[in-house]
C-alpha cells in the first residue's frame, strides 16, 4: 500500500498463517502462558494495585531519567563497575569489541540480552573473529539454526519438542536422537557447561539498574545468567538507558509483576543482584565488570511526553502472549528485534514510522495488550498516534520518519470519506444507492476484494434505519 514500505508485515504474516505447525506451536505455548499468568493474579483488585504501583515507579524513573542515570554511573563507579555510554548500536558494538580485545578475549558466553539482539552483536563479533555463544537454552536453540528470537523471553517458542529433537541430533556433535525433554536439556547443558568454563568473557542484559546502590538486577530461570556473569574473568552488561530505577525498594514490586506477567511465576529460579567485580578476599566472580548503556533512539522517544510511555516497558512479553495477531503469526513475521504489540510501537519509533508503516497498521486495536501490560502502556493509543505521525506529523514532533508514510491515494480516500459523511444529504443519497444497489457491487471491487477473501460480501439492508425512522414519522428534532 505504501511505496516507502520496505518490509511487509502483511506478506510475512500471510506466509506464517499457512504454516499449521507454527500456528499450533504458538497457540499452545501462548495459551499455557496466559493461564499461568492468570493463576498468579487471582484477585483483580490486587493486580490493579500492583499495576498502578509499577506504572508509577516506571513513570517516575523516566521523569527523573537524566538524574538517575548520572546517579547510576556514580554508584556503579563506586562499586567498581565501569560505565560506558553508546548513542548508537554501532558505538555499543565497537565499545564491547574494544573491551574484549583489550583482554585478548576470543570467546564470549552470553546470558540472554535483547539489547544485544538490537545491536546484532553476535554477527558483529563474528566478523571480528570473536565467537559469541548463547547460553540461554532458547537462545542456544535458535543460534544453532542461525535464527533470531521469535519472542522476547522465550526465543525458541516457535519450535516444538520434536523439531528441537531433530535439530539437536543433527547439530550437536555425537548427539543421539531423543524426544525426551530432560535428555535434550542435558545435552545442551553439557555443551554449555564447558563453554562457561572456557569463555574469556561473559555478557548479560539488565532487568533493572538501581541508581542508588549501583546494582544490576538480572532475572532468569536457568542459572546461565549467573554463570555468564560470574565464571568468566570479564563481565559486560548491556542495557537500554530506560532500565534504571531509583532504589532497591522499587525493584521489589517490579520484579513481582515481571515474573508473574511473563511466565506466570511468583519468583524466578534465579534473581541476580550484581554489585561489582570480585573483591580482594573473594574466590569467585569476574575481575572486571562493565556496563554499556545504549540509547539507540530512546532519547528521542523519551523527549515526547506521550510516546515516553513506550519506555516504561519491563520486557515481560505479556502483550505478545495475549495478542491475537502475534499468537497466529509468531514473532518472525514482524521482521523486527522486538515482535508483538510492544514491537509494533517500539520498532517504528526506532526505525521510522514511514518505513515500518506495515507494523503500525498490523493491529486490530483490540486492546488485549494494554489490558495485561503490567506498566499500563497504552499501546493502541500509541499506535494511533504513530499512524497519525506517519501521515501528518504533529507540530513539534520528533518522531523519526514523520510524514513519510503518506500516499496521495490514501489522502484522497479520506478526503472523499469526509466529504460524504460531513454532508448528511450526500450521505443519504449514497446510503440510498448502497441499500438499493449495494448487492450489485462485484466481490472483486477495490477493498471489498480483501474482505471477500474469506467472507461473503456484506449486503446492505433494503432500507436504512434513517429511512425507516422517517417513514415512521416520529419526532426527529
Amino acid at each position, binding site marked *: 500500500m505504501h511505496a516507502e514500505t520496505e518490509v511487509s508485515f*502483511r506478506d510475512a504474516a500471510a506466509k506464517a498463517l499457512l504454516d499449521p505447525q507454527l500456528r499450533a506451536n504458538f497457540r499452545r505455548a501462548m495459551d499455557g502462558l496466559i493461564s499461568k499468568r492468570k493463576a498468579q493474579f487471582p484477585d483483580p483488585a490486587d493486580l490493579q494495585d500492583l499495576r498502578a504501583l509499577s506504572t508509577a515507579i516506571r513513570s517516575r524513573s523516566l521523569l527523573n531519567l537524566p538524574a538517575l542515570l548520572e546517579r547510576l554511573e556514580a554508584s556503579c563507579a563506586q562499586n567498581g563497575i565501569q560505565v560506558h555510554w553508546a548513542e548508537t548500536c554501532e558505538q555499543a558494538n565497537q565499545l564491547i569489541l574494544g573491551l574484549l580485545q583489550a583482554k585478548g578475549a576470543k570467546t564470549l558466553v552470553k546470558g540472554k540480552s535483547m539489547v544485544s539482539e538490537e545491536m546484532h552483536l553476535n554477527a558483529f563479533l563474528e566478523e571480528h573473529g570473536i565467537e559469541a555463544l548463547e547460553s540461554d537454552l532458547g537462545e542456544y536453540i535458535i543460534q544453532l539454526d542461525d535464527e533470531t528470537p521469535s519472542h522476547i523471553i522465550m526465543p525458541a517458542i516457535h519450535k516444538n519438542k520434536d523439531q528441537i529433537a531433530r535439530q539437536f541430533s543433527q547439530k550437536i556433535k555425537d548427539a543421539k536422537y531423543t524426544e525426551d525433554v530432560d535428555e535434550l536439556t542435558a545435552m545442551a547443558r553439557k555443551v554449555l557447561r564447558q563453554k562457561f568454563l572456557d569463555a574469556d568473557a561473559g555478557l548479560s542484559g539488565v532487568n533493572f539498574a538501581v541508581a542508588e546502590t549501583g546494582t544490576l538486577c538480572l532475572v532468569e530461570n536457568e542459572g546461565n545468567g549467573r554463570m555468564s556473569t560470574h565464571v568468566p574473568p570479564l563481565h559486560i552488561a548491556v542495557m537500554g538507558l530506560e532500565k534504571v530505577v531509583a532504589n532497591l525498594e522499587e525493584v521489589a514490586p517490579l520484579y513481582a509483576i515481571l515474573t508473574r506477567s511473563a511466565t506466570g511465576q511468583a519468583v524466578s529460579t534465579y534473581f541476580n543482584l550484581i554489585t561489582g567485580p570480585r573483591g580482594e578476599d573473594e574466590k569467585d566472580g569476574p575481575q572486571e565488570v562493565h556496563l554499556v548503556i545504549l540509547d539507540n533512539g530512546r532519547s528521542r522517544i523519551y523527549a515526547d511526553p506521550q510516546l515516553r510511555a513506550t519506555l516504561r516497558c519491563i520486557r515481560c512479553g505479556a502483550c505478545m502472549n495475549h495478542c491475537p495477531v502475534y499468537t497466529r503469526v509468531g514473532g518472525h513475521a514482524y521482521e523486527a528485534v522486538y515482535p508483538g504489540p510492544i514491537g509494533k510501537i517500539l520498532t517504528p519509533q526506532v526505525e521510522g514510522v514511514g518505513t515500518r508503516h506495515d507494523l503500525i497498521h498490523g493491529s486490530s486495536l483490540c486492546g488485549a495488550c494494554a489490558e495485561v501490560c503490567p506498566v499500563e502502556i497504552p499501546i493502541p493509543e500509541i499506535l494511533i498516534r504513530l499512524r497519525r505521525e506517519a501521515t501528518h506529523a504533529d507540530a513539534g514532533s520528533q518522531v523519526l520518519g514523520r510524514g513519510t508514510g503518506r500516499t496521495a491515494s490514501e489522502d484522497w480516500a479520506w478526503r472523499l470519506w469526509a466529504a460524504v459523511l460531513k454532508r448528511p444529504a450526500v450521505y443519504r443519497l449514497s446510503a440510498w444507492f*448502497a441499500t438499493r444497489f449495494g448487492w450489485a457491487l462485484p466481490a472483486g471491487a477495490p477493498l471489498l476484494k480483501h474482505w471477500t477473501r474469506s467472507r461473503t460480501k456484506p449486503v446492505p*439492508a433494503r432500507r436504512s434505519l434513517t429511512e425507516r425512522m422517517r417513514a415512521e414519522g416520529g419526532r426527529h428534532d
Partner: protein
Amino acid sequence: MQEVYFYGTCLVDLFFPEAGMAGIQLLRRAGVKVLFPEGQTCCGQPAFNCGYWEEAREVARTQVALFPRNLPVILPSGSCAGMMKHHYPELFHGQPDEAEVRAFSARVYELTQFLVAVLGVKLTDLGEPVKVTWHSSCHAVRDLGLKGEPQSLLAQLAHVELTPLARESECCGFGGTFSVRQPEISGAMACDKAADAEATGATVLLSTDGGCLLNVNGTLEAKQSPLRVQHIAEFLWERTHAR
C-alpha cells in the same frame, strides 16, 4: 417523561436497521421518549484510527451538532460509543469547540449500558427455548468499559441458555480498516471466532457491535454454517415483545 437521543451509527443504519429499530423500541417500552435527529452519518472512528484526525473532526463536528439538548445519547454500538465518549475529547483537544464536545461525550451511552445502569429494565422472555453464544466486542469492553451489562440482560431471559465461547474476549479480527489492510490475519481471526462459536452448539451468536457481527457473519456464510449472528438489541426485542 424522560427523553433520550438515539444515534444509529453508520453500520446499524446500513446493515442492521432492525437492530436500531429494536433498540428504540426497547427504550420506548421502558417509558423513554426517543429522539432520532436527522443528519446522522458516522462517528468518525475509521479516520481517527488511521491517523486522519482533521477528516475525523470534520465529520464528528457535524454529528455533535445534532444533539444540542442536555439529554443522554444512546448508541447500539460499544465501539462507536467508545469513540464518542472517550476519543472525542482526545480528538478535539486544544480545538475551539473542545468544551462543547466534552459536554457531549459525557452524555454518551451504549444501549445495554443505559438499559441496565440507568433504566434498570426488567425483561420477560416470551420466546421458545434457545441456545445462544456471546461475543464481547473488544471496544465495547476494553475501550468503552462495559461490565457485563449485555450478559445481565440475557440472564433475565428464562428460556435463553448462554453457552460461552472458549475465547470470549478474543478479537474477532474486524478492526475496521484492519480487515482490508491485513485481510489474511483478519480472516484467520474471524475463522477461529466462527469455529469457536460453532463449537458451542448455539444457534445464534450475539454481540453489541455491528462491525464484529458483519465480520463473523460473512465468515460463517462463506463456510455455509447454519449458525447466524444477531445484534443483541434485535434479539432482546424479538423475545420480549408480544406479537
